[in-house]
């Protein structure tokens, strides 16, 4: 078995990032979109941790803490928006929220 290098972690990070981006762009259900955003943020965290280990620098881990913090805040606000949208449209399907059209 080859040694697990930073590259491996980067690959995982890329995969998660790609899946997350795909989910954000392609899904119509807003809840799923929000969850996909969390996936993207997680992939970023993996990347940070991998590099922190690579260079023996705690800065990566500190940054990851902050990323988690921001993700939490953003999730809260995003769900708030979701609830507001649901109250307005009685649906969470993004296709029906086209006020910005034009």
């Amino acid at each position, binding site marked *: 078995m080859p040694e697990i290098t930073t590259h491996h972690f980067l690959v995982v990070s890329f995969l998660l990032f790609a899946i997350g981006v795909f989910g*954000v*762009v392609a899904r*119509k259900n807003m809840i799923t979109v929000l969850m996909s955003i969390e996936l993207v943020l997680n992939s970023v965290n993996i990347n940070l941790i991998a590099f922190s280990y690579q260079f023996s620098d705690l800065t990566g881990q500190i940054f990851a803490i902050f990323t988690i913090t921001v993700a939490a805040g953003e999730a809260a606000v995003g769900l708030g928006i979701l609830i507001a949208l649901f109250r307005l449209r009685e649906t969470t399907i993004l296709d029906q929220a086209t006020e910005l059209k*034009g």
Partner: protein
Amino acid sequence: MKELLWLIPVLPFLGALLNGVLLRGRISKKAVAAIACGTVGIAALLSLGIIADYAMSIPAGHEGWQPFEQDLYEWIPAGPIKTTLDGVKNFTIPFGFLLDPLSCVMLFVVTFVGFLIHVYSVGYMSHEQGFQRYFTYLNLFMGAMLLLILGNSYAVMFVGWEGVGLCSYLLIGFYYKEEFPPYAGRKAFIVNRIGDFAFVLGMFALVAHFGSLKYTEILPRIAKNPELITGAGFLGLTLAGFIALCFFVGATGKSAQIPLYVWLPDAMAGPTPVSALIHAATMVTAGVYMVVRSNVIYQLAPGVSQLVAVIGAATAIFAASIGLAQTDIKKVLAYSTVSQLGYMFLAAGLGAYTAAIFHLGTHAFFKALLFLGSGSVIHAMGGEQDMRSMGGLKKALPQTYRTFLIGCLAIAGIFPFAGFFSKDEILHAAAGHGQWVLYAVGLITAALTAFYMFRAFFMTFHGHFRGTHEQEHHLHESPAVMTIPLWILAVGAIGSGWLGLPGDWNLMHHFLEPVILQPRGVEVAEHDVSALLLALIALAVAGTAIFLAYRIYGGDRGLEKGRVWAERFPGVHRLLSNKYYVDELYDATAIRGFWATARGLFRFDAGFIDGFLVNGTRNLTVNALSLGSGLFDKYVVDGLVNLVGTVLDGSSRVFRRLQTGYVANYALVLVAGMFVLICVYMVWRLS
């Protein structure tokens, strides 16, 4: 005394100033009359004094005689001009007066008759509106007339000339509220103007040649050196002929000769004293005065002199014939004036200048007398002037009757009244120069004169009264203020003739002799015709005419016999009573032509110049400018604006498709942008 000469014209002007401007509407009628008559009266007395003073100073044999000249100030210093005789010389017109025998005679006539008429007007106009205005104009006229006759140059004469023309207009149109008087005033002024134009041309010729307009600088010089103006002039005439002709045309306008006489009969629309003063005694004689003053020039232009005589004679007989058929008493007198003026020009044209002035003087007296008498009649008739409504006024107006009779006898040329002497002198001159045609015309005119004057006399004063009952009750003799001047004039109408007895006793001729300059080398051919014989012939002719008039109109006959004669020659009668249709002829040709030209010019101005040129240019400019500006605005400016709009619209149409409203699309774009950024980073890292 002579130094006070300038005061004579100034006094009437002062009266006009007081009555017309300073004291207008503020003083009583008595005060107005006092001022008006007072100024003229003082002028008259002054004239007498000055004339006496001057006459005494003339030596008996006329040796070394000088006119008295008084320059007041330099009126028009025109500066250097180029003259044909003296090269470049300084041309100035001083304002001054001249006193010589001719101006003495005129002065006496004008002031004396003028004064009497002023006094008469006080009575005649006492019931009229505009009393003060009337006397203002009358004084103004007197001042202008005195300027005319006392002026020492043609320029000052012209000032007076125009002034009397103006006053004539003002006084003819005195009753301006009616329709006809203003028209008659305009007619007089405009016809006068035509003559004045010629007068001015003559003055210009004098200035161009002599560089001066003063009598004393021109006339004696011509007399000494006649060749100065016998050279070539204009239009095939000699210079003398040209100037003489121009002056004479002016005279025909002012003195109502053919062809410019048409204003005088219509001028009767003015008050009767005005007709007496202006259109009988004074203004109309200005033309005669002018010709006599310029006698040297006329003596050197025999052709024009002959023309003057011929027109004078023609006018005399022409006007007399019209007088035969007139029914308005003033019109009869008007045509009579035209006729008698013709006599004066006949004399002047023949070279008998003293005879012309003599007749001017006697005519002033008896014509004024006749006009004032007719005024008295009209006054008594309550304004009626048609003789067909008169008749038998002998009993109601005895003084008027007698003085009018004296006037008629005078004008008919009956011994011993004034007209006899003056008219005969003219006929004697005609015969003496061998102009038998002119003599015959003059004789026939004398007959016609006697006839129509007595026709008027009999129609007015004899027979039965033909007017209405109200008029009959109104008949009354005029007050003393009107009858006394009549009598004074009657004395003049008798006595003035004795100043011109034929032969060596001719005081008038002797007095005026120095004025008649004898140009060197001009001979006067005289036939020796017995004056006595001619006088007897004239008397016989006149007497026959009066007798005929009596037979037709006199006694109790009234108008029937006259009507019978009129019916026998209906065509002639119509021709005469319509004044030979001359006014209609003038109207059809000159007046209509004038109006047509004026209208045509107006149309040209309004249509072409205003319409096409001015408005067209304006339209062109405005339209072109506005068109250009509009096009510019529409295509360039708006184009730019629209371009911006179109561009924005197009681009927005494209970009709008970005705004799908789908959040997922936005997210995709976001990712795609990130994708691009990564590409950029990759490239950057690789390079």
